[in-house]
């Protein structure tokens, strides 16, 4: 009896600490290669460090003051926000509707899902090469097809009006399949009995979607929304391989501008880092607020 009790205590003691061993390798890597560089970035933001890394001076908050007066920073923030506000909801809605249409494992549905996922597997470098030529105003197939209807050839990626919507299109084109697959898995997990019960009560597909699918899917939607929100704020590749931020900075996002400041003349790593810190805080505050709201909503439903 006593022996059983002491071994139980020992186990409990083990059980309360063994978790640290499980997370140790991952936390060590994250600490050394994410958190440490992040903190270093805060410090670099307070200096006038350049790419040659020679004797940086401490300049206090002057980089931050400078950025508030920099019109290109506001422009880049505005572009980033419009990208996020367009991409995230449109992609989620498309993925959600398609997931609901295609979650049953019929031949046609499976084929659609397989094809929709294919662009997720391609690099933006490759997709950029592909779309740059397809959209090119002198040799591209898409401007040609449009010109058959409108009678004139529009420059697409080099037009201020169309550049951002096209970038939004390309990134949704590339990644809605991923969101869809995750949502299909979520929908398949909802017990079929719920649908059967509501069908007996006379609910149609649309009512079932809003009263059964959507509430039960909320944790999954929460997950995908959060990750796509974070990803959208960090948008870089798609702009880099298509417009490069142009025309007239109309598609220049925050990360784009940071990269431009840090890695082209005059290589102001200090100033770039201070803007990176600002972006980080904007994302952190928005995402955490978003997470709180979502979690409260889920609690209210159950």
């Amino acid at each position, binding site marked *: 009896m006593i022996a059983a009790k002491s071994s139980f205590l020992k186990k409990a003691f083990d059980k309360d600490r063994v*978790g640290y061993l499980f*997370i140790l390798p991952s936390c060590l890597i994250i600490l050394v290669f994410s958190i440490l560089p992040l903190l270093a970035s805060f410090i670099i933001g307070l200096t006038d460090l350049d790419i040659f890394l020679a004797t940086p001076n401490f300049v206090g908050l002057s980089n931050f003051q400078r950025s508030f007066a920099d019109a290109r920073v506001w422009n880049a923030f505005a572009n980033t926000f419009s990208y996020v506000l367009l991409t995230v909801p449109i992609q989620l809605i498309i993925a959600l509707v398609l997931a609901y249409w295609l979650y049953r494992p019929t031949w*046609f549905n499976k084929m659609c899902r397989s094809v929709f996922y294919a662009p997720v597997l391609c690099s933006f470098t490759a997709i950029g090469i592909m779309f740059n030529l397809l959209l090119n105003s002198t040799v591209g197939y898409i401007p040609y097809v449009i010109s058959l209807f409108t009678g004139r050839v529009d420059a697409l990626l080099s037009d201020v009006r169309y550049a951002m919507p096209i970038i939004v299109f390309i990134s949704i084109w590339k990644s809605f399949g991923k969101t869809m697959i995750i949502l299909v898995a979520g929908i398949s997990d909802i017990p079929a009995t719920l649908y059967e019960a509501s069908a007996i009560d006379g609910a149609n597909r649309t009512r079932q979607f809003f009263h059964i699918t959507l509430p039960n899917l909320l944790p999954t939607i929460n997950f995908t929304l959060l990750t796509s929100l974070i990803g959208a704020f960090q948008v870089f590749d798609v702009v880099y391989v298509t417009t490069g931020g142009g025309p007239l900075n109309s598609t220049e996002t925050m990360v784009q501008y940071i990269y431009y400041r840090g890695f082209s003349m005059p290589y102001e790593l200090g100033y770039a880092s201070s803007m990176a810190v600002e972006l980080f805080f904007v994302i952190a505050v928005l995402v955490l607020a978003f997470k709180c709201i979502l979690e409260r909503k889920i609690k209210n439903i159950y």
Partner: protein
Amino acid sequence: MKRITVSKTMQVILCLLILFLIVFPFAWLLVSTFKLQKDIIKWPPTFWPKHWTFKNYSAVFERIPLAKYILNTVIFAGFVSLFSSFFDSVAGYAFARLDFKGKNVIFNIVLLTMLVPFQIVMIPLYIELNLMGILNTFVGLILPRITSAYGIFFMRSFFTGLPKELQEAARIDGMGEFGIFAKIMLPLCKPAFITFFIFCLTSNWNDLIYPLMMTSSTAMRTLPAGLAIFVGEGVRETGPALAGALISMLPLLILYCAAQKYFVEGIAVSGMKG
């Protein structure tokens, strides 16, 4: 009854339209890699080439060490995904199913690192790898990536969905925590493990800026980085660039055809079902 048929037809038509939107650029790319340069840049553009040629493929292998790029990408993406899937499931399991002090605080910090764009840490990271002397090596490329906050988040969500009874039953049977993880949880999470492995493989295979910054020699470049440099040099020959783009896509697409079910099944499978 009729209304349902109409909406079903609409669904199929819309799905076919999206299918076309996805397939057409790929089909166009595939056909264009067999075009002569003058057929690629003529107006009005035509879908089918006048003359079929394989020259673009031989040209891209001549211009850049494409085979070396492929090998480098396999080593980099393969090892990163293998390590990351393992360490992330270990940590994700602990965050989901073990109790220890400060768990939520640590998890929230891990989650916060997900918010950090790579572009913010890349300068200090570059300096760090340089100080460690592992810049432009496979160790330097792979080590910072052998765990990912996203992976921990993903695996934690998976383990949270597993029934608690499994773990409790094993504990009553006198199994240690490592035993429970290795003998019960790890086999159960095989689908999620493979799914995340493939997620991870995809993102690292396609990553551009990280390998671009952390490698400096041509012999260390990965496919996207090498290809981006090739295109960025202002090469006027579009044919080889298109062929290169297609070749860089193929390995993952082929793997996808072979292991497709893990993309769909992996996420939904939970312990009690099997």
